[in-house]
């Protein structure tokens, strides 16, 4: 599954109650997003990184899956140092880089890296189905939940259709070039993709009807908060307070 690459596993993070993970993820994101100090941001990156290591995910795979994100960071470093006025540190022709700009870019990189890592550690280690279940425990509107779950299902369906069609083209020696044949074939691919996923989703819906579906999802999985979950929650909450405290003392210093 495209989105659930990291969701399978038996580690502490994988087996923690999804409700607890959501409860932790949201405040972590807020605190980090609102923090100003570089120390806080760096500490947050380290904590998030250790969570990822505890969860047993291969760091290489994690970094690879978010490589698009790093392009944005790179863009930041190209733009920010030269566009924020301040004390000049480097000069490239007409461009002047300011130390304020560099610090700003550094702060944003650290903060956003930490947030992305926390999301992977907390939410990426949870199956989407479980997340939807957990959200229902927080009394999110039912319609929103079904919408989330079904869009997720159908994104997967469309993706699988795409893989099938692409492979069908590949095994017959298709290689994209810049010519009419390529454009036409890719046009067919996209057209077929839309039609076939539409028809398949219709058939899946029919299969659901055949098994007595009438507009309600029943939750099969049942969550139970264990003692271990509470310990994890306490430790992570204490760590978050630590981050908050760091932010506070660096501000008054």
């Amino acid at each position: 599954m495209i989105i659930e690459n990291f969701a399978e596993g038996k580690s502490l993070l994988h087996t923690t109650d999804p409700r607890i993970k959501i409860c932790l993820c949201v405040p972590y994101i807020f605190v980090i997003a609102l923090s100003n100090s570089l120390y806080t941001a760096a500490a947050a990156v380290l904590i998030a990184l250790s969570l990822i290591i505890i969860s047993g995910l291969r760091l290489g795979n994690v970094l690879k899956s978010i490589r698009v994100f790093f392009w944005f960071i790179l863009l930041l470093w190209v733009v920010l140092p030269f566009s924020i006025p301040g004390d000049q540190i480097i000069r490239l022709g007409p461009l002047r880089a300011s130390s304020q700009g560099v610090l700003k870019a550094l702060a944003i990189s650290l903060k956003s890296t930490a947030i992305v890592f926390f999301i992977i550690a907390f939410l990426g280690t949870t199956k989407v189905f479980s997340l939807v279940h957990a959200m229902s425990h927080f009394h999110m509107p039912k319609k929103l939940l079904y919408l989330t779950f079904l869009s997720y299902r159908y994104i997967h369906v469309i993706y699988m259709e795409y893989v099938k069609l692409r492979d069908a083209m590949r095994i017959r020696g298709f290689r994209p070039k810049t010519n009419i044949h390529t454009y036409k074939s890719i046009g067919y691919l996209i057209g077929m993709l839309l039609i076939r996923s539409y028809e398949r989703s219709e058939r899946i819906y029919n299969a659901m009807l055949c098994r007595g579906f009438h507009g309600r999802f029943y939750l099969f999985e049942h969550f139970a908060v264990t003692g271990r979950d509470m310990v994890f929650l306490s430790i992570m909450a204490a760590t978050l307070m630590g981050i908050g405290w760091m932010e506070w003392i660096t501000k008054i210093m």
Partner: protein
Amino acid sequence: MDNKDHVIKLDDVWFSYSRERPVLSATNLVLHRGERAALLGSNGSGKSTLFHIIMGLIKPEKGKVTILGKERQQGRDFFEVRQKVGLLFQDSDDQLFCPTVAEDIAFGPLNLGKSREEARDIVKKTLEVLGLEGFDERITYKLSEGEKRLVALGTVLAMEPEVLLLDEPTTGLDKEHTRRFFDIIKSSARSYIIITHDPDLIEQSTTKQFAIKDGRVYKR
């Protein structure tokens, strides 16, 4: 033949996907309680279409569909049909849609109003019957074709249907699993119609054969 012991009865049913070519024309079919029938016919002759009409997934242009003793016309007439008639789709990928095997098998029973504990028991029992112990947490879309087929059968059996409609159920199954498959359906449902091209199966597990040709169903 109008006694009440038929489970499925089609009278003069017409259906076409497009104007030019009717798929079913003046089709009649009766399945009595306890009958085990095969539905034969060449590719594209309308076998799957016939099943979909019985389940109320598509609506015939004309004709009478009587299932379990009641005439069924509108969408809501078919709610009861879908609880008591189990359809195994030709393509298992259409049937399995929950992430894990356990959830998929539990989906039907939960829709029927079973409690979570009952559903869990049903999942366990069904997997045992199919010889798929330990498959609970397996991811449905990562199973092999044959495994998918068995799990799809499980999702249908979990609803304890009175009648089974099986659309080429044994394609992709090995000998051992084919035998097992038939042991299971023979013991679990009293009536069924099975679409198959396998002469051995027709011989061994059916008592009646229908053939569909040029949009009509013939008894053989």
